[in-house]
């Protein structure tokens, strides 16, 4: 049987690769240090496949057909969709067997995700993949969520998707090691005059609930409550999917920095090593001095 060997989440501001130099050195180093710690954690976990939950930015879907969830089942994907990310375009290997298994198990659990053989991966996945997987080229099963266009799946529905994914991964007959990554949020405003504003109070509250193993308090938020942290804050859904997969475990916050030039509250969190997850190692405390900034 397969096992879930890592469960992590991080913000995915495109500027983290497109223009990292716009942030002050201290916050930038702390975020990059935390991402490097996650990268080491994932490497030590020896994941065979990465399941990456992120959100749609009108890259694959338009208003003629905008699914709440879509699982990428193709043999390969392409990315990044944006030419300005400073990430070389490439083919990202997919994992048809696991993608199809997750789709089938989701349907059996009364979830009804869309599926796609042909996903373009934008900054939502590619920035995090670039920083966490580097040149390892681990196969990826992307899961795209609607965190942009109302009506969106509820926070609770996204959390429950994570529970379904966890059960599906652990029921997969293949002897594989699977890591789950959530990418998005935290507070930010997109395409609006408030862009650059950050609601650090909301972000710290959100991270605090996950660190305490109390996601229920978050799941009670209405979309209007989330909107107080910006229209981009709806992307916390990807974090909640990871929280659902973590089964109520306490997360460990490796970094939080409100970085206005990156227009995002930048959070990094891991559940790896928490009780109930497989034998993945805990990330060491990030040492911002030890990790050079990547491009």
């Amino acid at each position, binding site marked *: 049987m397969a096992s879930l060997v890592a469960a992590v989440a991080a913000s995915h501001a495109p500027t983290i690769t497109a*223009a990292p130099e716009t942030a002050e050195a201290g916050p930038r180093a702390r975020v990059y240090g935390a991402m490097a710690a996650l990268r080491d954690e994932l490497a030590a976990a020896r994941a065979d496949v990465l399941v990456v939950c992120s959100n749609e930015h*009108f*890259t694959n879907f*338009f208003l003629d057909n905008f699914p709440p969830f879509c699982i990428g089942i193709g043999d390969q994907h392409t990315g990044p969709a*944006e030419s300005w990310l400073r990430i070389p375009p490439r083919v990202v290997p997919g994992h048809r067997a696991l993608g199809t298994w997750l789709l089938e198990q989701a349907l059996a659990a009364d979830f009804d995700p869309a599926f796609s053989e042909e996903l373009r991966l934008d900054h939502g996945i590619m920035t995090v993949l670039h920083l966490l997987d580097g040149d390892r080229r681990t196969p990826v099963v992307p899961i795209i969520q609607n965190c942009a266009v109302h009506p969106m799946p509820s926070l609770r529905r996204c959390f429950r998707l994570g529970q379904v994914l966890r059960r599906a991964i652990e029921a997969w007959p293949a002897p594989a090691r699977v890591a789950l990554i959530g990418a998005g949020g935290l507070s930010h405003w997109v*395409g609006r*005059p408030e*862009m650059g504003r950050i609601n650090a109070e909301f972000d710290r509250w959100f991270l605090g609930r996950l660190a305490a193993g109390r996601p229920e308090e978050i799941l009670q938020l209405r979309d209007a409550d989330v909107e107080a942290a910006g229209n981009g804050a709806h992307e916390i859904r990807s974090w909640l999917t990871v929280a659902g997969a973590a089964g109520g475990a306490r997360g460990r916050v490796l970094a939080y920095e409100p970085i206005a030039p990156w227009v995002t509250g930048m959070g990094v969190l891991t559940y790896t090593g928490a009780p109930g997850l497989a034998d993945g190692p805990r990330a060491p405390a990030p040492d911002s001095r030890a990790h050079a900034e990547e491009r």
Partner: protein
Amino acid sequence: MALYALQKAIYDYLNPKGPPEAPHPERAALAAAYGLTDAERAALVGADVRALAELGVHPVLLNSFARACLSREAYRATLAAMARPETSG
């Protein structure tokens, strides 16, 4: 023309058909194909972020379009100007 058509033209601009390296289509051609009004056409062809926002383009779609068409500095300046009341000269 409906907002839907304007947004579809933006989406098609950002996501050209064909292989990943396919170039962006001409914005003027998209405006014609979707039968946009003069105001919509001018906003699309001129990458006028403020005008597109006032026409109701979804902010996430608008953000992707702005990042594809404008420098980061120009985009931020436009948003900052949008935060201020427009003054007539």
